[in-house]
């Protein structure tokens, strides 16, 4: 089932659930105390796609998801599921499955009853026989690998297990569309990774269209066919994970998707100067400019290269994993830089805290032009 949103927007009034837990620091505040949660948004989701909604807190992800679900009413715009317009269709009749961040399991029902709820709540004329329900529920529980837990109560399950029950419950009615609001947000790293993997398998197996909210970049990139990056109630970019990382549409996306180091200075004759630091930046006009680079786009050496003279000193070393993370400071730097280098380089340079080195950017990014630009390779020889 494809999903098509056009010109969906939403503004919250002064009151409402906003008072509790939701800081009023959110963006999109209008002067009159109303919150513009969504600017008019267009979105096309193909049948069977797994789409991640990614963005910082308050960017409108949940609002968008709830509007698609029908749990919230948009102020304007239309929603189509396939050819059917559902803009004014009640949640109950949208044929969606919804997975809540904190599971929202029915506390007083057993796992079995939770999963069976949607089936038993059907009008008597359409309701399957109790035998059929039993079979279907057990099938679903098997699918989420919880067949042995049917008689337990939610409180007797771990977070990951609860989330799986929640999924099974949402799938019981064979929805056309599955919507998930930060499904793994409350779980710890290990369980999270496991469930993520499992959700992807499930999605591939059952072929529904899914839309999930997350604020974890890694999760979005790992799971989604395409990612919708949002900020301030606007869609910043919609693209596959790979494109997103390699061709960010703007500075926000670039910064949001990973660690970023900043380099600001005055450019004259294609050379950027900042205190006693200098680096060649071919093709950049004169003036004050800000350039960005990722941690792995920094190489370290014990002497300056021909194109860059960026003296730094090491303030921290974390030798974990395939790479070593190094924190760098310098007079000419506002905030410290983060560099990731290979263990080989780490050993070669005998890096310790306090060591003085020279940084050499292998790539630099600009976002002050209409289209983002990458200056590369600046690598020296």
């Amino acid at each position, binding site marked *: 089932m494809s999903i098509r949103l056009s010109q969906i927007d939403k503004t919250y009034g002064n009151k409402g659930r906003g008072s509790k837990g939701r800081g009023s620091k959110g963006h999109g505040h209008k002067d009159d105390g109303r919150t513009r949660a969504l600017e008019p948004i267009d979105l096309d989701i193909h049948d069977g796609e797994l789409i991640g909604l990614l963005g910082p807190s308050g960017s409108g992800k949940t609002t968008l998801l709830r509007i698609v679900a029908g*749990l919230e009413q948009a102020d304007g715009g239309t929603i189509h599921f396939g050819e059917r317009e559902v803009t004014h269709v009640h949640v109950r009749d949208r044929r969606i499955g919804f997975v809540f961040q904190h599971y929202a399991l*029915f506390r007083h029902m057993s796992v079995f009853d939770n999963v069976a709820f949607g089936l038993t709540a059907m009008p008597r004329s359409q309701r399957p026989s109790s035998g059929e329900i039993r079979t279907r529920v057990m099938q679903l529980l098997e699918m989420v690998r919880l067949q042995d837990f049917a008689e337990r109560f939610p409180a007797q399950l771990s977070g990951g297990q609860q989330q799986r029950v929640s999924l099974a419950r949402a799938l019981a009615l064979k929805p056309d569309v599955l919507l998930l609001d930060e499904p793994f947000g409350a779980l710890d790293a290990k369980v999270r990774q496991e469930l993520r993997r499992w959700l992807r398998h499930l999605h591939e197996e059952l072929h529904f269209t899914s839309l999930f909210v997350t604020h974890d970049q890694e999760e979005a990139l790992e799971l989604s066919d395409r990612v919708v990056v949002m900020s301030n109630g606007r869609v910043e970019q919609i693209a596959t994970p790979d494109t997103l990382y390699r061709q960010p549409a703007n500075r926000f996306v670039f910064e949001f998707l990973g660690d970023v180091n900043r380099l600001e200075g005055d450019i004259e004759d294609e050379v950027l100067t900042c205190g006693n630091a200098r680096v060649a930046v071919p093709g950049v006009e004169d003036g004050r400019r800000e350039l960005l680079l990722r941690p792995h786009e920094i190489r370290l050496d014990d002497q300056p290269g021909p194109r860059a003279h960026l003296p730094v000193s090491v303030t921290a070393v974390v030798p974990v994993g395939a790479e070593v993370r190094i924190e760098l400071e310098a007079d000419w730097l506002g905030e410290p830089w983060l560099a990731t280098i290979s263990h080989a380089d780490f050993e070669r340079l005998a890096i310790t805290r306090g060591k003085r080195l020279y940084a050499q950017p292998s790539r630099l990014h600009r976002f002050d032009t209409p289209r983002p630009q990458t200056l590369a390779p600046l690598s020296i020889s």
Partner: protein
Amino acid sequence: MIRIGDAPSVRRLLIGIALTLTALLLLLPLVAIFAQALMSGIDVYWQNLSDTYTLAAIGLTLLVAVITVPVNLIFGVFLAWLVTRFAFPGRRLLQTLIDIPFAVSPVVAGLVYLLLYGRNGWLGGWLDAHDIQIMFAWPGIVLVTVFVTCPFVARELIPLMQAQGSREEEAAVTLGASGWTIFRRVTLPNIRHALLYGVILTNARAVGEFGAVSVVAGAIRGQTNTLPLQVEQLYQDYNTVGAFTSASLLALLALLTLAAKAALEWRAARRETAT
């Protein structure tokens, strides 16, 4: 774990004071009621209890409770659902309004009803013309009791339902459940303890209301005397033992109420630790 006030001397002192005051202030009156009731022996107690007027008072009191409790139960649930599940202008005001009976002296509560439904009251003339007797009959007693006890259920439910939020109900809606199904199968099980507690409080107060009822009851023996009124009248009749006999019934009811409440809490606590 070490916490403030853990020193044994402090602990003993505070517990000591607390127990002494509780005994003096709460336990002793309770004991006194039964002591006075049984002063002249169990036979007299029994005799007093089976007095026709006392029996009639028990009957009327039960009738009042049987009507008041469901009425307030239904109202309380609707109100709690309304103010915790929807945002609408005036929600705060509504929530404050239900506290009015707490602020109104029972005598005043009786008075306002009398002013409204009494023969000279706004509606009284019409009622009188149609020969409908509300004041000085059981409907009046029920009305003021409903007034006095109406905040209890709602006040128990609102904080709980607010804390629980509407996530489970929303989940049920996405699963296609209708309103009644949601309430019956999702909301009700979650609030049933608070609901029961609210009912217990309502019942206790309904059974025990004196001030408001005394204004509208008309004190007709065997007809409009509730148990608390009966207690007062027997007392005025120099029938101290009789008065305390009826009082002991009410006290017994109070004790049952407390026991029921304690049992509920205990069960809830056990469930919590079990999981």
